[in-house]
Each structure stands twice: as C-alpha cells, then as structure tokens.
C-alpha cells in the first residue's frame, strides 16, 4: 500500500510529497526524495535519514521503521570529504 510522506531534504527550499511502499527500504525512500529534489539539490549517496527526531536504519523497510501516512522524514546528506 502506498504511504504518502512529507520528505525534507537538507539543502532544499521546499518539502515534497513522496509516495512510499510499505516494503520499500528507507534507503530507497531517501533516494526517491533526492531524485525528486535533484533540480535544486545535488545528489549525494552518503546520507542519514531522520524520523521523529531519531536516525533510522536505511536497511529497514518503511513499515519496520514505523513511518506512517503524512509523517515527516528528513534526509540529511553527509558532507563530502
């Protein structure tokens, strides 16, 4: 089932609606947001995902990570060394 989520990519100027599948991994979700925001923010493979103020494991599925419809999640690119 598709879950609509509010995605915020650090560096971007606007939040975007991302439709996730319960079985999607958090990593796939983060990449989906990066792709959607790529007109404004350059892609970065190294990133953290935050939900409810906590870092979440990118290997978890959206359902395992506890993301529910209309939640906010944040993708925070790591600084390039």
């Amino acid at each position, binding site marked *: 089932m598709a879950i609509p989520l*509010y995605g*915020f990519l650090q560096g971007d*100027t606007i939040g*975007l609606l991302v439709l996730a599948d319960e079985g999607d991994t958090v990593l796939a979700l983060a990449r989906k947001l990066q792709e*959607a925001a790529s007109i*404004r923010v350059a892609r970065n493979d190294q990133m953290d995902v935050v939900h409810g103020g906590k870092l979440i494991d990118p290997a978890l599925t959206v359902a395992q990570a506890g993301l529910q419809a209309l939640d906010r999640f944040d993708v925070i690119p790591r600084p390039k060394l």
Partner: protein
Amino acid sequence: MLSREDWLPLARKLDWDYSYVREEEVFPEVISGRPWLPHSEWKDWEESFKTSYREYVDNQYEKDMAVYAVRDAVGRLENFQTLAAPWINSLKVHAAALPLAEFTGVIGNLRGARFGRDSAWRTMATFGALDEYRHTQIPLLLFHQLVRWDSQFDWAHKFYHTNNWFAVAARHFFDELTLGQNAIEFHIATNFILETGFTNLQFVGLASLARESSDHMFERMVTSIQTDEARHAQIGHPVLAVVMKHDPKYVQYLVDKWFWRNWRLFSILTGLSTDYLTALDQRPYSFKEFMEEWIIDQFLRTLEEFGLKKPWYWDIFLDELDIYHHMIYASAYTYRATLWFDFVIPSPAERKWLRQKYPKYWDDMDAVWEQVIERWRTTGTGAANELAVHGTAMPTFCDLCQLPLSAGTPRQNTANVLVQDGRKYIFCSEPCRWIFLQEPERYANHKDIVKRVLSGEAPAQLPNLLTEYFRLTPDTWGTDVHHGNYDWLIARKASVA
C-alpha cells in the same frame, strides 16, 4: 439651512436608543464582534478625517481624473511593452492578487457599515467600502487592455476563481480576514494591521519601485489607492482603543494572529517583486531594508502607543526577513508552471547583490541556484526544455497559511506535524501551528492542495493538476522569461565546454 460645521457632526454621529428591539439584537455579537459592549462604551468613537459624502465624492472624482489622465498619457499598451520583462511579471503578480482581494474589502467594510457599533464608524466604513470598490475597478480597468497582448494578464480577473495553489492560499486568508469576519476583528485586522502595518507603506514602496522601473501608470495607480488607504485605515485605531480598555488580551491575540497571517502573503508579493522581479539597477532597496525602514519601526511604535507587545514570535519573524521569500522564490521557480507569471534566474551580479544584502543564509540559497543553472546546462536551454528544468514531485503546503512548506532555512525546514482528533496536520512554522491551535474549529476542515490530491478531489498527476485544477494552459503557465537563454549562462557553458 445648517452650515457644514453644524450639519456634519449631526449627520456623522446619528445614534439613537432603541425602543422595541434590544441593542444586542440590532448588533449581534456574532457579526458585530466581541467584546459585546453597550453603545455607551462606543459613543466617543472618533476619527480625524470627518469627511462628508459630498466631499468624499468630489475628492474621489479628482483622484480618478488624475489616474485617467496618466493612463491616457503613459498607460497605453505600447508603454507597457517598453517595460523590463521581470517587472511586467511583477505586474502580473499584483494584477492577480490585488483587484478581487480589494473587492472582498468592500464586503468587510459593508459589514462595518451596518454592524459597526457607532454611527461615525459606520459612516467611515461606508466610504471604506466605496474606496475598496474603486481599488477593484481601477486595476481591472488598467490591466484588461493588456490581455490581448499577454493572456497571463487574464489572471487579474481569473485568479480568485481558480483552485491554483496560490489562489487557495490567498482565498484562505481573505475569506477569514474580510468575507467571513465580524466587524471588530475585520477592522482591527484589516485597518490596523494589514493597512496601517503593511499596505499603506507597501504602496509607497511599490510606487517607488514602479517609478524606478519607469512604470508611471502603476506608480500613479498605487499612489492613488494609497491615499484612500491612509484615510480608511484610521477606522482601526479607535476600534482597537475601545476593545483595549475591556479586553487587552484579545487585542494582543488579534495582533499576533494577523501580523503573521499578513506577513506570509506580504513577504511573497512584495519580497519577490523587490528582490527578483525588479531590474538590479532599479532596486532602491532590498526587501529586508524596506521592511526595516518602512514597516518594522512604525509598527512597533504603533504597538507601543496602544500598550501592546511585540508578537511572541518576533525573533522568528526577524529571522524570516533574511530567508523566507528567497525559499519561496527558488521553490516557485522550479514549479513555475504551477503559476500564471514568468520567472528569471538571478544573474551573477544579482546573486552578488543578494549575498551582500542577505549574508546570513545566502550561501545555502546560492547552492540551490547553482544546481538549477546546472540543470539548464545539462538539458540545454530553450522553450522545449522548460519542463526538464522543473520539479516533478508534488510540492507540499501548510495547513494554516496554505503556502508551500518553505519556512526555516535550507538546512532546517521548520515544518511540523500535529495530530489532533485523529487527523494529521502539517504547518510550515510555529506561528502557523499556534494560530491553528487557537481556533481549530475555524481551520480544521479546510483541505490544503495535498489533502485534496490524496482524497481524489484534485488530480494527482502534475500536468492534470495544472490544467484541470489550477486552470492553467501551456500558453499561460509560468516559464523562465528567457527559457534559460541568459548571456551569462551561455557564456559559462561555452567556457566549461
């Protein structure tokens, strides 16, 4: 026959005691506003203009003739065609946002003209309604001739009749401010906060921008409107002064609520025009400088004069001066097909100017523009590539102001989620959340664009949303004025190659 001096006070102050109805029935609290007070508390209501109807008509006639004279001299189509393209798009923003919003002011003033609690207030509100009707008709008249040249000007009349996201936000604001408001809140929120706080001075600033841009027609129009605003804005002060005596907490609440609600729309309308849609060499000041010089000082002085405090979110507001309209502009540029006017990318010289004016957060904004420019370079410039340099995902909106979730900074967007009565809401900022929570019954059932899409009320696919719901067409939706063909962008592309 009475002289003017003897007649006018009698005509303006014509109140009487009711014998077969109660005063509460003539002026019900639900429509006259709270606190409900007997007329004895309002009888000293006064304003300084003390105009008679005849004087009003004579003055307005003179002002209208002056506007028409300027229109005949410099308001022809060929005059507009000489203006810089970005400024013409600033005109399109105002052409859409202004006239029918002013018409809602007619309705609000007419409510005051019937349900205001003193006859002098009602007299002044009658003039206010006539003013706002004039402010509707003048821009509709002036912009109508431009439709045959550029159909985006059709939005002067069309805007509020669409479900375009910005129209939804503007309607949400004006429905509450003017159309559905009781007389007391209307006159405090509109006259004291919107007009005294923002638009009275905004029109002075806009006239100055128009003059610098050689747009003498628009300059004359806003100057003429401003003289009306300066008069009818005076209604708010004596209304506020009476309510202050009886319920100062309520007045403070109205100030806090309406300053923020006004700021949201004002920062977009004026911020974009000042810092992006006016040619660099014609900008007399930055938007932040304008706010600091024209708005903040006088607003704070007025608050102090009435014994009111700064709104509790004042530090958030000051911080937003550096960033909010920049976040909105960059977001809107990358969703320009969702709007009815065209955009420009700030040039290297403009970005340098913006960095000087907004040093606090400009580095983060500049990175966004670099990325947008990179996209034009990658896809190639030209009208055919417009949609390749455009957002594709659904943008998101605040459940209070209905504007994009573009508050905070690129590093830390301040959107926040609220769960209440089994429903989820999202707000762009703490003040929007606070306003919602003060009167949830007022706002809870309004759906933002995202909720309309999710409920099936609006199309989910962006192209369908634009054409079927926002009422745009490929001919009228916003594009880049130059379709990416900027000399500096092409020169840099060549040097990179």
